[in-house]
């Protein structure tokens, strides 16, 4: 059963669906948070991560996640672009391309390097500190992705409509946060307090500012082939 759930989560993460984790026992009386993240024009923001930090930390799973999930490398791109995980999660980086990749991160939350490899690395990478981890490939500079490491077991990633549902939350007080790779300002500035009851759902909406998406481009520039 545990393996089946793990597989389900891996598949959902792989497919880039809005993903909700709940590692605490599923109770008959659990609350929900319906989150909506919009940009300043009112358009839904995809790939935002909404986190619910319980005021009573024992409501969360302090032991962290035990599953191994994956970030694929397909057609010289990371998939998914944003992967939210709980502290203590091991992430594997299988290379589905027929060329070698060199995955690395300089982020304070996880500094690591997987030198040139094909296939699946022998050991997954353990994400043991909260924070956003920026992934890169030293061979293909345009490849970029983010692992958001949450110190709460209650989080979800928004879909194309900007919506995400956090389900099966134990009743109580929570601090909500929203994060996005292009969030203008600090994540802490998005914090808000909510109370989750045994029944019904809490609606939470953010209108966040986004910085322009300047990424190292994959598309060629005439006369610069080879860089």
């Amino acid at each position, binding site marked *: 059963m545990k393996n089946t759930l793990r597989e389900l989560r891996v598949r959902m993460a792989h497919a880039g669906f809005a993903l909700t984790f709940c590692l605490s026992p599923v109770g008959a009386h659990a609350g929900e948070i319906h989150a909506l993240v919009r940009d300043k024009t009112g358009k839904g923001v995809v790939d935002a991560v909404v986190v619910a930090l319980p005021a009573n930390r024992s409501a969360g799973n302090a032991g962290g996640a035990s599953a191994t999930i994956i970030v694929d490398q397909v057609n010289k791109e990371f998939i998914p672009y944003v992967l939210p995980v709980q502290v203590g999660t091991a992430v594997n980086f299988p290379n589905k391309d027929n060329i070698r990749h060199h995955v690395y991160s300089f982020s304070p939350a996880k500094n690591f390097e997987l030198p040139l490899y094909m296939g699946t690395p022998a050991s997954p990478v353990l994400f043991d500190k909260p924070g956003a981890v920026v992934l890169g490939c*030293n061979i293909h500079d345009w490849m970029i992705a983010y692992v958001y490491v949450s110190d709460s077991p209650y989080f979800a990633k928004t879909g194309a409509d900007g919506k995400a549902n956090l389900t099966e939350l134990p009743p109580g007080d929570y601090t909500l946060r929203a994060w996005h790779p292009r969030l203008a300002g600090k994540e802490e500035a998005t914090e808000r307090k909510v109370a989750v009851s045994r029944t019904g759902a809490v609606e939470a909406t953010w209108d966040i500012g986004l910085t322009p998406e300047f990424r190292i481009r994959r598309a*060629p520039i*005439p006369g610069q082939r080879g860089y």
Partner: protein
Amino acid sequence: MTVWKWVLPFVWGLHALDASAGWLDEVGLELRFDDNLTRAQLDRDIKSDTALVVSAAAGTGYQLTDNGRLSLTLTLSGSAYQRYEGLNNLNAGLELAYRWKFGLGPYVPELRLSGSATRLDYRDAPRDGWLYLGEIAIAKRLSDRSGIRMSYRVEQRESDTVADRLRPAIAADVFDLTSQNLSFGGDYAIHPEYVFSAAYTIRDGDIVSTTRRNLPVFLASSAIAADPVFGSGRFAYKMKAITRSLSLGVSRVVGGQASFTLGYEYLDSRAKGGIDYEANLVRATYLYQF
């Protein structure tokens, strides 16, 4: 033939070294206008034309170490001119390049060494020949938005045949050319989808100017041959010159792996004896990288 004797075993050896080499492919389509195709000084001699250029590049890359990458690329290109069909050409080349990154991440400097040999096949047979290039280049990305690069390149062009001499004492190898090129450039993303690029190049070497009979050009030239591509009574003169060029371009990302670029290049060549010319090139280029 001698070249292939060592190229083929070399390629075989690379495959044995890294059987997981990946294919690099790029295709392109370009519309190019040149307002002084003859590289001439006088208005009466200046000819302009537009060419459609199709290009493709395919090859293998070998990631030899964490920082070093060797690539072998076959390039094909064809140009079709609207008016001067003698310039229509089909070229096939082979390039060997080695790229070295000085560290980890996108912002470390990169060094690139490359050498290539390209077969040039023109409708105007005297222009047929080989073009050999050797280049050393260094590039550094400064941020997600900007990067700079510098390169030094030597070129040698060798024609298959030499035209008949107009005078016994005057050389006719007008399409045997050598040059050195020093280039500085950079690019800057002015918008997430638009990149502005600029480059300044100084070229020291042979140029070919096609004009009617012209005494000052004759005195400055080292070789002369008839050049009927631009009409009867036209002659190609080979001269040593310093050419400065400035190229500017705005490139738009199309679907992530492709780009559409509008480019402009200004050429200013100065040879001895007060022989100089200017040329302006405008390009519209679509490139797709697989």
